[in-house]
C-alpha cells in the first residue's frame, strides 16, 4: 500500500490527496484506463495515417482536424451496429471472449512506469506479471475462435495458440537476459538500471523480443490469426458491433502495451534529457509503434510453418545464446558493464543474425504429398 501511494507525486498530483488508498486507487485506475483507451485510439489513427502516407494515399482526413476524430466516429458507428450471434455459436463463450481478451491487456498497464514513480503498482515481479497476464488474452482469442462455430475462426484460433506457445519462449528468454543485466524483475528498477538503454546492451535481446512480441500480438508480417486474404477475419469473423470493436481495441491496446514494454525494458522508459519523463515515455512508445506500422506496410505475410520455423529455429537459439553470453558477462566481468560490453554485444548480434539466417535457418518446403 505504501508503495502505491508513494508513486503519486510524479503525476503532479498532491501526495496528500484526500481519501486514502481506495480513493487513489480509483483515481489512478481511471486515469490509466482513459490513457490506455486514448492511446489505443491514437494508435489506430497513427496507423491509418501512416499506412496511407506509405501507400501513396491520404488516409482518414475528414473527421475533425486532420481526421483525428476518425477513431471516435468509428467507435460510435460500431456501438450502433447490430450485435449478431451466429446460430451455431456457443453463446456464453462467444459473449465472454472479448472481455477475456481485453481485460488482461489492460492489466499490463498497471505495472508500466509512465514516469518517475508514476506507476500504479510497482510489483517486484513486474516483468513476470506482464508475461503471465498477457498470455491470458490468448485464451480469449481461442474462446472467440472456438465459440463462433466458424471454420475460419477455428483455423485462426488454432494458429494463434500455436504461435503464442512458440513465441512465448524466445520472448521470455529475451526478457530474462534483460533481467540478468538489470538485476531486478521490477519494471521501475529496470528503468533505473538503464544508464544506457538496454537496446545497446542487449541488441540481440531487443531483436528477439521485438519479433516475438510482434508475432504474439498479431502484427504483420505475423498476422496469421486474422489473415484477411486467407481467413477473411480469422478468429473474429463472426463478431460484429461492440464485441468486434473490443477485439479491434485489443489489437491496438496490445500493440501499445508491447510498445510500452519495449520502451520500458529496452529504451530506457521515461528517462531522457531535457523533456519531462512522461513525454519521453510517450515519444518512445509512439516511435516503437511506428516501427511496427512500418513493418506492416513493407512485408508480406509468412506461412504458418514458416512462423513456427522462425520461432524454434531462429529466435529460440539466438535467445539462448544471448542469455548465455549475458550471464557470462555479468558473472565474469561485471565491471565492464555497460561500456565495453555494448560494443561486444552489438558485434555479436551483427555477426550472429546474418550467420544464423544464412547457415542454420531453413524455412522448409511446406508441400505434403496427398
Amino acid at each position: 500500500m505504501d508503495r502505491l501511494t508513494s508513486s503519486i507525486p510524479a503525476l503532479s498530483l498532491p501526495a496528500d490527496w484526500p481519501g486514502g488508498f481506495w480513493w487513489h486507487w480509483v483515481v489512478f485506475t481511471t486515469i490509466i484506463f482513459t490513457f490506455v483507451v486514448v492511446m489505443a485510439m491514437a494508435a489506430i489513427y497513427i496507423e491509418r495515417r501512416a499506412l496511407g502516407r506509405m501507400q501513396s494515399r491520404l488516409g482518414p482526413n475528414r473527421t475533425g482536424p486532420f481526421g483525428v476524430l476518425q477513431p471516435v466516429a468509428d467507435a460510435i458507428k460500431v456501438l450502433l451496429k447490430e450485435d449478431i450471434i451466429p446460430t451455431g455459436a456457443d453463446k456464453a463463450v462467444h459473449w465472454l471472449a472479448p472481455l477475456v481478451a481485453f481485460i488482461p491487456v489492460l492489466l499490463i498497464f498497471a505495472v508500466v512506469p509512465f514516469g518517475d514513480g508514476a506507476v500504479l503498482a510497482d510489483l517486484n515481479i513486474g516483468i513476470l506479471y506482464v508475461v503471465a497476464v498477457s498470455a491470458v488474452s490468448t485464451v480469449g482469442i481461442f474462446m472467440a475462435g472456438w465459440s463462433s462455430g466458424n471454420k475460419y475462426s477455428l483455423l485462426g484460433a488454432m494458429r494463434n495458440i500455436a504461435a503464442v506457445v512458440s513465441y512465448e519462449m524466445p520472448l521470455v528468454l529475451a526478457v530474462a537476459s534483460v533481467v540478468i543485466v538489470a538485476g531486478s524483475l521490477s519494471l521501475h528498477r529496470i528503468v533505473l538500471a538503464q544508464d544506457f538503454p538496454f537496446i545497446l546492451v542487449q541488441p540481440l535481446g531487443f531483436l528477439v523480443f521485438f519479433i516475438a512480441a510482434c508475432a504474439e500480438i498479431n502484427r504483420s508480417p505475423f498476422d496469421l490469426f486474422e489473415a484477411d486474404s486467407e481467413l477473411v477475419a480469422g478468429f473474429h469473423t463472426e463478431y460484429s458491433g461492440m464485441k468486434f470493436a473490443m477485439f479491434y481495441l485489443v489489437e491496438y491496446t496490445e500493440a501499445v502495451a508491447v510498445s510500452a514494454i519495449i520502451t520500458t525494458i529496452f529504451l530506457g522508459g521515461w528517462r531522457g534529457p531535457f523533456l519531462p519523463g512522461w513525454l519521453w515515455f510517450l515519444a518512445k512508445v509512439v516511435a516503437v509503434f511506428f516501427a511496427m506500422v512500418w513493418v506492416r506496410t513493407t512485408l508480406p505475410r509468412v506461412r504458418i510453418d514458416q512462423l513456427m520455423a522462425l520461432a524454434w529455429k531462429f529466435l529460440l537459439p539466438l535467445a539462448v545464446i544471448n542469455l548465455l553470453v549475458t550471464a557470462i558477462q555479468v558473472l565474469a566481468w561485471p565491471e565492464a558493464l555497460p561500456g565495453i560490453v555494448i560494443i561486444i554485444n552489438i558485434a555479436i548480434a551483427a555477426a550472429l543474425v546474418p550467420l544464423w539466417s544464412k547457415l542454420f535457418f531453413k524455412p522448409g518446403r511446406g508441400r505434403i504429398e496427398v
Partner: protein
Amino acid sequence: MTTRSEVMTLKTEPFAVNFGPVHPSTHGVFRMRAVLDGEVVLDIEPVFGYLHRGVEKLAEERTFTGFIPLTDRLDYISSMSNGLAYVLAAEKLAGIKVPERAEYIRVIMAELQRIANHCIAVGAFLNDCGAFFTPFLYLFREREKIIDLFEMVSGQRLTYNYMRIGGVSQDLPEEFLPALRKFVDQMARFIEEYDFFLKQNEVLLARARGVGILSQETAINCGISGPVLRASGAAWDLRKADPYSIYNRFDFDIPVGATGDSYDRYRVRVEEIRQSLRIIRQAMEQIPGGPVMADVPRPLHPPTGEAYAHIESPKGELGFYLVSDGSIAPYRCHVRPTSLINLTALREMVRGWKVADMIIIFGSIDITMGEVDR
C-alpha cells in the same frame, strides 16, 4: 486412464471449408470448396457460374458492331484486348483490311492494356501473399496513368468500347503521343524500382518460390496459355507463334520461367511489362498517319461462313469464334476464355499445400470472373 496407444490412435478428420463466393481473395465470385486436414489442402473443387450473364447468347441478338461493348464486360480488367480479339474475328469473317495507323493504335492499346492488367495481377498476387495493400496501391497508381491515357482516346475508364470492326472508334488526340512518351519513361523507371524491392524480398521468396509448381507437360495438356504457361518454361506466345495484327514488325523477347512456381509467374509478368514498354516505344516511332477506320458497310453483313481469331491477351490465348449466316447478327459466337481454361490446373497445383499457399497459387494464375463465367 488413456494409455499411450489410445492417444496414438486418436483420429483427426478432414473438414470442408468454402472459400468464396464472397471472400477477400477470390478475385470476384469464385468459390473453392476445399477439403482441409488442419492447414493442409487435401482437395479442392472449383465452383463458378455466379457471374454468368449469357454473353455468347446475347451476341446472337446484336449486330456485329453492337456486340463490341459486351466484349468489354468479359475480362473487364483488360477490355481493350477483348475488343481487339473480337474485331479481329469479325474482320476475318468479313474480309476487311484495317488501315496501317489503326493497326499501330491497336498494338499500342493492347500493350498498354497488358501493362495495366499485369499491374493488377502482380498487385493482387502480393496482396494475397499478405502484403498489406502497399505494392497493390503503388501498382494501382501506375495503372491509373494508363487509364488516363485510355480515357483520352475513348472517353471511358474501364469498359472502353474503342475497337471497331475495320479500325478504332476515333483517332488519337494530339496530346496523346507526348503523354504516352512521358508515361513509358516513367513506367520504365518505376518498374525497375518496384522490382528492386520485391525480387529479393525474403518473405516473398519464402512464400512464393517452389510453391504451386505447374509442370510444362501438365500446363500444355490442360491447354493453359499466357504468363502461366510461359512461367512453366514453354516459350509460347501468340504474338510470335501466330502473329496477328502487325506484331511481326516489332522486336521483343518472350520471358519464360524456369520452374513454373508462383514466383516465376510473378517474375514473368514483371518481365512482360518491360517487353510491352519496348513494343510501345517501337510502335510510337513507327506510327504512320492516315485514316483509322476502313470503309466498312453499315450494317455489316459478313458472308456466310465461320472464323476464329485469337490474340495473346494479358492472361493468355483469348479467342473468338464467329459463325455468320449472312445476316447482321452472328449466328453463333463462342469465346475461348483464358481465365477459365487457366483455372483447370488449379486443383493439381494446390493439393498438398497449405491454406495460405492455396490463396497465393490461385492469385498467381490471375483470373477475372467476368471471363470465367461470361
